């Protein structure tokens, strides 16, 4: 069984600032990292590999420099790393992106090994849409299990997976037949650290690149042309200046009382 992990190279958003004039992200000199949620998806795939001996493929759609992200995946122990890169893939929204990723997964399924699981981070920290994972599942007609914080059971004989989903204030235990697409949350695991030997090997490995000649997708369904979403504006939300309540050091109890009253008045404190 092949496990496919979708990973994305994202700008390190803690270092991103928004240009106040153009309302776009200032990306100059901002280092790229592997989308943090994706590192948990990758880790889970590698744990399944360690336990069951499944093979793991990491795929990423992005510009040529996204190779670094895949090298990191290689250094952690994935068996295949494929970069989906082509100018015609550029400018894609979540729909067009999931078309490309789904096509790549189908190709792996047909040519390398039957795909049993697709793992994605719950969302990326740059776009934050959380749509690509489910989009892939829809395109491939896989069951989708989002926000997974634990794989409870993976049964190869019955071809079923049982997971825990982390929802607001509760957990949901769900079972689904394979193949399935999972999006994962940080609580799922702690990502491993690459061994030097693997880093050195990864550094010398040439990452396979698939372009649209390889995938043969209709150009109307990919890239800018295949993207019905248009971003009109990005901006930092305005935030009202806070106020200082009471005197916390002289009268902490009084300050706390004022705060509680304020929160109750704004209906922000569930009673």
């Amino acid at each position: 069984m092949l496990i496919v992990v979708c990973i994305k190279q994202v700008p390190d958003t803690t270092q991103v600032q928004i240009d106040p004039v153009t309302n776009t992200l200032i990306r100059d000199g901002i280092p790229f990292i592997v989308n943090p949620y994706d590192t948990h998806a990758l880790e889970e795939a590698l744990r399944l590999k360690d336990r069951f001996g499944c093979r793991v493929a990491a795929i990423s759609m992005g510009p040529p420099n996204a190779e670094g992200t895949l090298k990191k995946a290689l250094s952690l122990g994935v068996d295949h790393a494929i970069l989906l890169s082509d100018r015609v893939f550029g400018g894609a929204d979540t729909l067009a992106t999931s078309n490309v990723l789904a096509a790549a997964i189908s190709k792996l399924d047909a040519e390398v090994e039957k795909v049993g699981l697709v793992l994605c981070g719950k969302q990326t920290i740059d776009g934050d849409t959380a749509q690509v994972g489910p989009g892939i599942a829809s395109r491939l007609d896989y069951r989708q299990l989002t926000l997974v914080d634990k794989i409870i059971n993976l049964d190869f004989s019955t071809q079923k997976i049982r997971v825990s989903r982390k929802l607001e204030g509760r957990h949901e235990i769900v079972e689904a037949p394979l193949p399935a697409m999972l999006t994962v949350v940080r609580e799922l695991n702690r990502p491993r650290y690459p061994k030097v030997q693997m880093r050195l090997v990864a550094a010398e490995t040439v990452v396979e690149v698939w372009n649209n000649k390889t995938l043969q997708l209709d150009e109307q369904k990919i890239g800018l042309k295949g993207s019905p979403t248009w971003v009109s504006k990005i901006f930092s939300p305005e935030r009202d200046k806070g106020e200082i309540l009471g005197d916390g050091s002289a009268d902490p109890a009084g300050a706390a009382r004022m705060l509680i009253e304020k929160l109750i008045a704004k209906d922000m404190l569930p009673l």
Partner: protein
Amino acid sequence: MTPSPALFAPLLLASLAVFAWGCWRRLSLISLGQPEDRFDNIGVRFGEMFRYAFGQKRVLAKPFGINHALIFWSFLILLIANTEFILNGLFPHTIKLIRLPFELYVPLAFMIDIASLLALVAVMIAAVRRLISPPYPEARTPEAFFILGLIAILMLASFALNATELAAYMIKSNSDPASFLANARKMMPVSALVAGILPPLQLNAIHSTAWWAHALALCAFICYLPNSKHMHILTAIPNCFLHRLEKPNTQPREDFIPGNTFGIGRVDRYSWKDLLDSFSCTECGRCQNVCPASITGKPLNPRGVIHDIKVNLLENGAELKKSGTQQMPLIGDTGEGSISEESIWSCTTCGACMEACPVFIEQMPKIIQLRRHLVESDAQFPEELLNLFENMEGRSNPWGIAPTERTKWCSQINVKPFEKNTTEYLLYVGCAGSFDSRNKHVSVALAQLLDKAGVSWGILGKDEKCCGDSLRRLGNEYVFDRMARENVEMFIERGVKKVITQCPHCFSTLKNDYRQYGLELEVIHHSELLRNLIQDQRLVLATATNTTMGTTVFHDSCYLGRHNDVYDAPRAVIAAATGTVPVEMERTRNNAFCCGAGGGRMWMEEHGGERINLTRVTEALKQKPDTIGVACPYCMTMFEDGLKDVKADGVKVRDVAEVMAEALFLP
């Protein structure tokens, strides 16, 4: 039974065979180690050997060392007596010291007699000490008493031998006992005293008993020596000769080539000198008695690490030679001969163990090699380090704060960027000085002082990167190597020649570690620069000195003091600023006790035992200070935290730059 060459010769030969076999077995194991050059500067090495081995300089650093020195020096003299004994046992009546010219023989006999007495007294004191108050509880081993007993037997037997020979001569020459013994006492005071009380009729019996007791004890000693911790008698002198002449304040580079091994996970990956170290340890326990981890109840014991390396080598040696595989893991919780991961991570790399070791065993570099193996080959480390490693690699600082915030500390003051060929000093602010809210104050104070003194200085601003100290000490050499190369490249490109650091960790890394990358910087710690500026009257204290500091006690940072020998500069700055020489703690200067944050421990949880910083804070508070002076951002954090924990609200912690700035700028 009288002395008989027919009996003694085979006994001696057998003992020498056991001795040779023991030496060969251990020394051939040493040859399993990796090559390392320790034969440079031969002249200096001989000097070191005479100073530290024959001169017992480090042994004498502790009061009880005098006892060991007495045994050692006595042994050197008694080598002559024992050589005579052996030759005489093999070829009776041929070679005797007494045949030497009288002027030579008398002082020699006197020295031998006195040396025997001193050795006897010293081993008795050593035995009593081990019984009453051993250097560490496990030191009360049968092995220790056995060897002390053997030495005592040798001494007592030699007195009996000399005494019987004196008495026999006295009888034979028909001398008047009183005057003969009075004369003899001038030559051999102790033996003559014994001769006076010997029963004349049993002289022969006593002589042959003593002779055989001496012979047997000597042979036992010869057999036992190379097969026990007492092998240090043979290895300690070469170990002093071979010690690293530069301070062991840095670790060797690694070649990152696929197929190489990284760090050390198998005993034969250590260098031959590392393996020799393990046979040079006599388990005196001085290292563990100064180790902040051992003292506060952590699993690490530097003596234990060296002992485990020895046991592991003895256990695995044969198989390593044969098939290159190990039976007993070097790293593991399997008991004697294996070093636990917990103990490996407990080291603060403070270097106190190496400073205390009388024979220059290098414990700390061995521990870092084990860390390298864990991090680089096994990716196995305490979980809190994952964030640190990722933050260092991704954002070049331990906290993972955006590099764009590196200049926030100087947003309120005017700081110039470092300019090639224009600015004299680069102020390498360091991560703590840039991001840590408390230490930012130190950066500001230092900046103001530099401006006041008219120093030409600038910063790299957002381009400054972490020096990588914690990574290197934690064994993450791969990432350190990358950061070091980037930094070195940037320093060269920017034309940086002189650097001021306010962090001893940056200081030591830039100064010592980066030299391995071909970068010779003139690195100066801010305490040294401030001292110089005061001396040169570029920082002039008008009238009043800083009296708000009150009684100030100074804490030495390990990476400034022990690792780089900077002790006086920070004290001089405090003295100039406060008008009073700072008070010293019980453990100070090269014996100072670590704050607990070095070696990457700053970023790790401290499990079990007492907290290291609390131990040190408590020690500082004994001096009833108003201010604790520090010269390191890590020490600053550890003391600030520690003082909060012990609720010592009235005591403040100040960096030397702050002490000086307050003296200059506060009304």
